[in-house]
């Protein structure tokens, strides 16, 4: 079992003929992801790594049952690409594109809701249901099947932590990258709920960061969760008023502080690691108990 995607998920790559699109298509295929098609307006009829390319998402959907789409288009065109996927009826849309204008992101989310679709990202590494399906960019070797659900805002920090879990033989059900922007499709609560319902997931790792109140909201839900949660919050040493790479990672007007998040999570019953490499240790302990 896994959440959102699994070994039956058929994936479309929007923007498959670009450099990034081609590279990650091959990587995803190597991981075992069922990539059934790609789009690139005007390149319909060609193939990339044996995968058929279509002019439009609708054309792809005429030829395949598509469960999820991943968007590699440039920022100024991402809203259009997301709408195209939603309008064609695709129910999981992964947007890795960064630097999308926030007003476009709000529109994408409003349409996502209207179409009843799950939107992952923007500015995300994607989602991996370990051993079954990887959508987008995490490096293949670090994701093995197991019983830990991981949800994070940030990419490389997730690889760091998941890599350490894997190194210690602790596999994952699904690893979800929500994305680093202020407006993203999934919240921690959305994903925690899915993990809570997933029978295979035994422990959940939450990788948060300063800024916003997503972790505080997560804490409210963790209070009523039956499954244990191990958390790490990045940005303890960040000064207020400075945006730390991600659009959301900023302490403004005293809100979104490290201390506030740690307090909320601890009080909700989550174990909070002080440093990234402590997470696997805590997970191991939790799995044992």
């Amino acid at each position, binding site marked *: 079992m896994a959440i959102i995607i699994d070994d039956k998920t058929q994936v479309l790559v929007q923007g498959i003929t670009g450099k*990034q699109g081609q590279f990650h298509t091959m990587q995803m295929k190597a991981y075992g992801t069922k990539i059934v098609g790609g789009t690139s307006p005007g390149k319909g009829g060609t193939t990339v790594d044996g995968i058929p390319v279509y002019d439009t998402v609708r054309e792809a959907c005429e030829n395949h049952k598509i469960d999820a789409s991943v968007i590699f288009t440039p*920022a*100024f065109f991402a809203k259009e690409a997301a709408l195209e996927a939603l309008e064609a009826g695709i129910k999981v849309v992964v947007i890795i594109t960064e630097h*999308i*204008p*926030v*007003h476009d*992101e*709000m*529109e994408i*989310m*409003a*349409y996502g809701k*209207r179409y009843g679709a799950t939107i992952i990202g923007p500015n995300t*590494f994607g989602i991996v249901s370990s051993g079954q399906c990887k959508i987008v*960019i*995490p*490096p293949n070797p670090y994701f093995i099947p197991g019983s830990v659900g991981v949800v*994070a805002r*940030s*990419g*490389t*920090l*997730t*690889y*760091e932590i998941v*890599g350490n879990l894997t190194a210690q033989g602790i596999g994952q059900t699904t690893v979800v990258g929500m994305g*680093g922007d*202020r*407006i993203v*499709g999934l*919240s921690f609560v959305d994903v925690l709920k899915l993990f809570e319902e997933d029978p295979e997931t035994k422990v959940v790792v939450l*990788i948060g*960061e300063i800024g*916003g*109140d*997503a972790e505080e*909201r997560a804490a409210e839900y963790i209070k009523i969760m039956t499954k244990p949660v191990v958390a*790490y919050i*990045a*940005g*303890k*040493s*960040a*000064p207020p008023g*400075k*945006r*730390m*790479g*991600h*659009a*959301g*990672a900023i302490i403004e*007007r*005293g*809100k979104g502080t490290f201390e506030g998040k740690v307090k909320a999570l601890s009080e909700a019953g989550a174990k909070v690691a*002080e*440093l*990234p*490499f402590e997470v696997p240790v805590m997970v191991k302990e939790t799995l044992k108990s």
Partner: protein
Amino acid sequence: MKLYEYMGKELFAQFQIPVPQGKVITTAQEAEQVALNLGGPCVLKSQVLSGKRGKAGGIVFADTPQEAKEGAEKLLGQRLGDYTIDMLLVEEKISIEKELYLAITIDSGSRQPILIASTQGGMDIEEVPEEDIIKEPIDVLIGLKSFLAKDIVRRMGFPLLSPIGKELVNIISNMYNLFLSKDAELVEINPLAVCGKKLVAADAKITIDDEALFRQQDLPRVEENTEAEQAARELGLAFVELDGDIAVMANGAGITMGTLDTLAYYGGKPANFLDAGGGTGVEATAKALELLLSRNPKAIVINIFGGITRCDDVARAFATVKANREIPVPVVIRLVGTNQEEGRAILQEAGIEAYDFMQDAIKKAVELAHSS
């Protein structure tokens, strides 16, 4: 991108939101002239991007053109927090009966714009009791239609057909139009002054989404970053100056923060936040290294978990820099992930041993910095 108050007020005027009469000036002579033209008591407002200008002495009242001149002489060139005052907005003094608060910003929780209104304006909205604040998320597929503006005005307690009620409905609608058409992250009027039967936006705080500047060519540009931050941005890197002495580079915002946190944990002080991003090539990485070196740190720690980023690229960048210039400080590198072996081989040739674990590398960097 934050806009100066006077820019915000120019936008307000453009969107039919009433503002006081006034003009931005850069010399005391101009201040005197503007005060003369206004023909009455006026206020000199320092044009800097920090809040709390009033408490910091950045706002001065003047009853006569002479006083305006003197006030401007006193303010111009002064420091206000992190900023030097080099512009003043000289405005008519308005007699305020009541201060309201209006803002539209972005709500991550609901993934929508949110309108915030209160009849307790004038202070920071964070200090207003929750029960005196109206929060209304805006459905972007509908927009802020006049029926919603009317409902907000009703909840604020103003009769809809009164002059103030009607004007408030207009201002709320116009604010949303501005917010939407200028790709704003924040449009705040605090205070929105009640002056008899009129409303006047006594202040203007507007922040524009940096990512949307490409389609906002008509807007002025305000540069708030330091030179180094600006240089990094031009390289496509996220760079923030901090006040420590150990330079840090990692790939990814989260892991960079995690690196800073680990550094602090071991007693080190980071000189910067530098997210070299994912998939940056040799050249950009080399430039990022140059940037770190230019800040004269006591040590440099590089923490790479290669995903899209290829370890050999990072190593090659380092080797390139080292071949071209002296590196006068110790560099500690953690390098794992894509093309790890090639990367390490290149580093070894350049005389550097890579670490496997970030905590070990960071600990070493702190030791080296302290012993230098």
